[in-house]
């Protein structure tokens, strides 16, 4: 299962990267969302999948699934949510101000 999940994470990553390399801002935002999904799956697979009970202590149970990747991912989900929403609003604002959402037309100013 871990190997299949690694391949899935790789697929999500590949799709995310492809989208990031596109010109339209929207696609880039979608790409980052896919990237974070891929990364979460990646972290989860690094631990072991499906060994023992969910990590909630119960009398008499010795084996639990690795709680550490889960804690990392939980933090990461929240942060990637923040980033995605920020990017979305940024894309929206950029479009409002510049009337375009194509990356090659958004090139900054010359004096940078």
């Amino acid at each position, binding site marked *: *299962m*871990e*190997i*299949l*999940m*690694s391949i*899935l*994470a*790789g*697929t*999500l990553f*590949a*799709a*995310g990267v*492809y*989208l990031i*390399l*596109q*010109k339209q801002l*929207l696609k880039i935002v*979608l790409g980052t*969302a896919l990237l974070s*999904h891929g990364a979460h*799956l*990646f972290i*989860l*697979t690094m631990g*072991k*999948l*499906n060994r*023992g009970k969910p*990590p*909630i*202590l119960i009398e008499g149970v010795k084996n*639990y699934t690795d*709680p*550490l990747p*889960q*804690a990392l*991912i*939980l*933090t990461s*989900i*929240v*942060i990637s*949510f*923040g980033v995605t*929403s*920020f990017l*979305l*609003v940024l*894309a*929206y*604002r950029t*479009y*409002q101000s510049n009337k375009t*959402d194509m*990356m090659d037309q958004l*090139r*900054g100013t010359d004096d940078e």
Partner: protein
Amino acid sequence: MLHIYILLPFLAALLIGLAAKKVDRIHTGWFVLPVPAVLFILFISKLPILAEGKIVQSIANWIPSLDIQLSFYLDGLSMLFSLLITGIGSLVVLYSIFYLSKKEQLVHFYVYLLLFMGSMLGVVLSDNVFVLYTFWEFTSISSFLLIGFWFYRERSTYGAQKSMLVTVFGGLAMLGALILLSITAETNSIREMIANRSDIMESDLFIPILLLLLIGAFTKSAQFPFHSWLPDAMEAPTPVSAYLHSATMVKAGIYLVARFSLIFSGTDVFFIIVSGVGLITLCLGSILASRQTDLKGILAYSTISQLGMIMTMLGFGTGIATLAAIFHIFNHATFKGSLFMIAGIVDHETGTRDIRRLGGLYTFMPISATLAFFGAFSMAGIPLPIFNGFLSKEMFFDSSLKLEQTSGFAGTFAEWIPLLAVIGSIFTFVYSMYLVFGTFTGKAKLDQLEKKPHEAPIGMLISPIILIGFVVLIGLLPNLINESILAPAVVSVTGDYAQIHLKFWHGLNGPLYMSLIVVAIGTILALTLKRWQPIYNRVPGKFSTDRIYQSIVNGLLSFSSKFTKFYMTGSLRLYTSIILVFLVLATSIFIYVTDGFKIAFDDLAPVTWPEVLVGFVMAVAAIATIWMTQRIAAIIVIGVVGYGLSLLFVFFRAPDLALTQLIVETITVALFLLCFAHLPKLKKSDKKPSEKLVDFVIAASTGALLTIVAISAHSSKFFESISKYFVDNSYKLGGGDNIVNVILVDFRGLDTLFEIAVLGLAALGIYAMIKYRDKGDMNP
């Protein structure tokens, strides 16, 4: 103990600004003066210890894991330099109090000067080569700051940059040599390197080490072909020129060669390179000095030439040559330091340093003039027993006649050395006479001067008087410093030393004839200088090292600007691609080289159909996002991936993740819907097929790399997981049953705090972007 000596100037540099703020009636220099003066006395008080043949040392750990210790030791050679640094330092600070007016940025000046003093002490006292290197670069930096002290002058910044580029280039070469040395000798300590010198001498790296080390020494000591930074460094205030660019910093290269002499000296390569470059520098410097019109320009080329002479003697490596070199380091500091100070006085009192506009100043400033005559006669080596410069020059001639190399190329080369020594000395005689007679005798051209010249204030004269006092005193009684200072220094350079008694009269012998030839031809040339000086203008400038330096700098600048323009196109897409390609290449090469890829099938969770099905759907949905042209469809497929992931979390027994992912995904989808309404439609990509192919390759390889890393990470477990700790202690220490929650809010509580901070920042950013949307600019 030595640590405190080195630290003292740095501490003073920190405090000097405060003192200057509090008391602005008193010249800042008066606060600085005690530092070198006290250090000078402290170093003098160590002389008896050295006389017994012992050394002073102190060690403190700095980076023990790299075997880098702040270990310092004071032997004869370090003592000579320390006395020069602190002694000349005191005189220069005293002189500068009268030279620099209170309107200048005095705090800056003295902070730089103290930084230099501390670093220079560090250079000559360090035992650890890497500590030495650090201080070495510090001296380059403080020299840069001091040359650029009058930063609003274009010549100053040019000179500062040039000295920095040349000396730091040499410093890097030297670092290379030091690293090779520490590998070859398996130690970072200079003394241990010298003790293990047979390892280094037999190593294949002997020649590269020697060459790199010499590049460092030659750039610092302005030897040919790296000499051209020193004349440009004369834009510094005159006290700095007297201190850094004649008495101390430029002798750091000499120090380096002397310090490592025990390892390299005696080989033909060392002899030919060091003496050869030294002789070229001696002759070239003195010949070029005779054409300068700026007083400090003459002195700069003269310094180059004198350093060349010292370098030559170190190249000889014989006992008498080394003694002469050490003696001349001392003598040069006295007469050249005083000449620089007089040049500063002339500049100060007349408003110019151009020798063509000067003349006849003897009647206006008799004391300065007398001092200058003593200094210049000593430099020229006039055979009178009151000039210390004559004594060391005589020994130079003597040692050039007594070279031991008898065979091969080195032998042939050795036979020509006395001739070159005489030629260099003739021109030294010529520019010395040109310098003083041109300035102080002849007809005064008062109409060409900005001010009416008069004698300098007594404060400015004290320092040169003391230095000239030494010139005469040592000239009369050379053995005064022979046993206490010179002999221990020679021992540190050559290892052993047979006592040589210094005296003026050796009878009618070779060296004396050479001196007389120098004086005779020198006098003729000096008298006819005006007639043959135009010859200099016939030499084409194409070959000057100045031009070569300039074309290298220009070439570097245009290359780097072209190279930067090539990849800094302003396209974020290109940047992302470059970063990703580099990531993929670097990681995969590393995996390939270290054989890092592992795949293990023995410890896998069983494959179950629901999970596979969900995963398959997610993969299809993720790939499908690429071709979506409908906004709503794009949201749906991205939602499929997100919700699929939360399902997977359920399967993989991560209830908290599943819940969070569900909520976050729902909000995200809502947000997408909100924003998409205001955004333009998705367009079909208008890229060329070749561009698409490039994108595809980058994306696919990044994905493949992630898969490989994930599989390898899963298959190779090098350490026991630390998760057990959290499972065991979740209830005991955190008081909670839900282990993930306990980790987040308790064990890693700070991480969560920062996570909340990130969310808060994102929220603030979003708020700002929406709030100010109608005003047209982001700045409220």
